[in-house]
C-alpha cells in the first residue's frame, strides 16, 4: 500500500528573526525538500519614488538616506546626486570626488560587516556578529566625525560634499584600514575555515550564471555566479577609473562563493581607500549650487555599485525645482527574485543559509 503524501505550504515570516526585516517566504515543501519558494514583499513599502516628487532636489538627499537601503545610506545619496549632477551638468571639485569615494568604500565595508555578522547568526555562530559590530563601530565613529550622522548622514550635496574632513580624520581612517586588515585573518579563522560553516554553505543554493543574468541579479550575487560585472569598472563614476582594484569573481555560484566574493570585496575596499587617502588633493569641496536648484528639462539614468549591487536611478525633470518622476532600480529587489532559483531542491534547513547569503535589505526591496 503506497503511503499518501501531500505538499505542505509553510509561511516563513513576516516576523521571522532570520528574514532580516519583514519578508514573508511562502515555501512549498515535499517532506523536507523545497519544491518552490516565493518571496512576498511589500511590508516595508514607503513609496519613496512618489514622495520624491514632492520634495526639492536638495531635500531628496535626506529622503533617499532612509527611504532606501538604510545600511548603506551614502550609496543612495551617491546615486541620487550623480543623477542630478549629470542632468544639471554640475561640476564636482576633485577633492569632493575623492572624499565621496572614500565614504562609499567605508560604507561598503560597514554594510558587508553587518552581512557577515548576521550571516554568522543565521548559521548559528553568534561571535561573528559581535566582532563585526566592533569593527563597524570604528567606521561609524569615522562617519560621525565627518558627517555628524551614524546611519543617516545627509553628507553629499549637489556639487560636492557638505563639510570638509575634520583635522586628523585621514590619519584615523588610515589607522582603521591597517587594523581592519589585521582583523580579517581572525574572521577567516573563526568562520571561513570552519568545517561546519563550509558544510552548510559549500555547494548549497547554487545559482547558475544563466539564471543570474536572466533574473537580473547583480553585485556579489552575480559575481559569485561568474558574471565579471562591476559598475565601478564598467561605468566608472567619481574616481574609480583612477584607482587600482580587482573585482573578485567566483564561478561556483553557491553560498560559499557569495561569501568569498564579499570577503574579498572588503579587502579591495581597503585598497581603494588607501589609494584615495594618498592621492587626495587639497582644495574646494563644494561648487556653488542654489538651494532650490532648477534642473533643466530632460531625463537621465545614473547607476552605481552599491554594496548590494547595481543601484540605478532614472530621473525625469520637467524643469522645475522638484523631480517629475523618479524610478529606483534596487539591487536587493532583483537579487531577492533570484532566490526562487537558488532554493529549489534544497532542504528546509538551507532556507536561512541561502537567504542570508543574498544580503537583502527589505527597505531597499520595497522602497
Amino acid at each position, binding site marked *: 500500500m503506497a503511503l499518501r503524501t501531500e505538499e505542505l505550504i509553510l509561511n516563513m515570516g513576516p516576523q521571522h528573526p532570520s528574514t532580516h526585516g519583514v519578508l514573508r517566504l511562502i515555501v512549498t515543501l515535499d517532506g523536507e525538500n523545497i519544491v518552490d519558494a516565493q518571496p512576498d514583499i511589500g511590508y516595508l513599502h514607503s513609496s519613496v519614488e512618489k514622495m520624491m516628487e514632492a*520634495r526639492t532636489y*536638495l*531635500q*531628496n*538627499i*535626506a*529622503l533617499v*538616506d*532612509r527611504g532606501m537601503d538604510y545600511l548603506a545610506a551614502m550609496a543612495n545619496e551617491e546615486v541620487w546626486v550623480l543623477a542630478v549632477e549629470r542632468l544639471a551638468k554640475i561640476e564636482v571639485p576633485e577633492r569632493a570626488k575623492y572624499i565621496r569615494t572614500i565614504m562609499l568604500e567605508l560604507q561598503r565595508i560597514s554594510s558587508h560587516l553587518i552581512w557577515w555578522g548576521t550571516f554568522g547568526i543565521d548559521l548559528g*555562530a553568534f*561571535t561573528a556578529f559581535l*566582532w563585526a559590530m*566592533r569593527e563597524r*563601530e570604528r567606521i561609524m*565613529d569615522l562617519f*560621525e*566625525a*565627518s*558627517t*555628524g*550622522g551614524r546611519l*543617516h548622514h*545627509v553628507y553629499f550635496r549637489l556639487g560636492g560634499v*557638505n*563639510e570638509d574632513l*575634520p583635522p586628523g580624520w585621514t590619519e584615523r581612517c588610515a589607522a582603521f584600514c591597517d587594523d581592519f586588515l589585521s582583523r580579517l585573518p*581572525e574572521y577567516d*579563522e*573563526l*568562520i571561513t*575555515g*570552519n*568545517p*561546519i*560553516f563550509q*558544510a*552548510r554553505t*559549500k*555547494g*548549497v543554493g547554487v545559482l547558475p550564471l544563466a539564471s543570474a543574468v536572466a533574473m537580473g541579479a547583480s553585485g556579489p550575487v552575480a559575481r559569485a555566479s561568474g558574471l565579471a560585472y562591476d559598475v565601478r569598472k564598467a561605468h566608472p563614476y567619481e574616481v574609480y577609473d583612477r584607482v587600482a582594484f580587482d573585482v573578485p569573481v567566483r564561478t561556483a555560484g553557491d553560498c560559499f562563493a557569495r561569501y568569498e566574493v564579499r570577503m574579498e570585496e572588503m579587502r579591495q575596499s581597503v585598497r581603494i581607500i588607501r589609494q584615495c587617502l594618498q592621492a587626495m588633493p587639497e582644495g574646494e569641496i563644494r561648487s556653488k549650487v542654489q*538651494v532650490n536648484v532648477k534642473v533643466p528639462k530632460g531625463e537621465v539614468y545614473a547607476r552605481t555599485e552599491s554594496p548590494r549591487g547595481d543601484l540605478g536611478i532614472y530621473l525625469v525633470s520637467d524643469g522645475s525645482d522638484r523631480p517629475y518622476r523618479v524610478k529606483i532600480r534596487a539591487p536587493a529587489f532583483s537579487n531577492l527574485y533570484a532566490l526562487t532559483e537558488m532554493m529549489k531542491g534544497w*532542504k528546509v*534547513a*538551507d532556507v536561512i543559509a541561502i537567504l542570508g547569503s543574498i544580503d537583502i535589505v527589505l527597505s531597499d526591496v520595497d522602497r
Partner: protein
Amino acid sequence: MSLSPAGPNGRKGYLEQAWTAAIGLVTGLRATLRTMFEPKATVIYPLQKVDVSPRWHGLLALPIDPETDNDKCIICFQCERVCPDRCIHIEATGKGKDRVLTRFDIEMDKCCYCGLCVEVCPTEAIVFIPHYEASTYNRATLLYTLDDLHRAAPKEPIATGVVKVRGGGR
C-alpha cells in the same frame, strides 16, 4: 544540510566529518578565547556615556547670543522652507527693527536630523547640540517651543530615569 549520514564511505565518513567539525569548533573557540583578553570594546551605556563628535546631528537649539542677550534669528524663514519634513513653524510680528519672534516651534518627532536648517541659516542661529537622549513617554513633549530651544536641553530625558533605577537596585 549536506552533513548526510549516507556519505560515500558510509559510517566512517560520518565519523570523520564529526571529527573535522570538532577540530573546527576548537579553532573557533581558541579565537574567541584570545579576544576575551583584549581591551573591552563596549561601554555600560546608561551609566557610562560616549562622547559624540562636534558635528553630531543631535537635538536642535536656538542659543541666546551673549552680546545682544537675544536670539540670532533674523526671521528669514529659510530653515522653515528647506525643512524636508516641514517640522519648523515660525511666526513673527512687527516691522523693521521691531520685528520679534512670537513663535519658533520644532516638532522633534517629525525631525529627521538632516541638518539642512543648520546649513542654510545665515546667522548660525539654529544649531545642533550634542544631546542624544530625547526619548520621552509622551509625544506632546516632543514639541519644542522657543523657551525649550533657548534652554537647549532635552525635555524629560528618559535615560536619567534608567540610571536612577539601576543605581538604586545595586
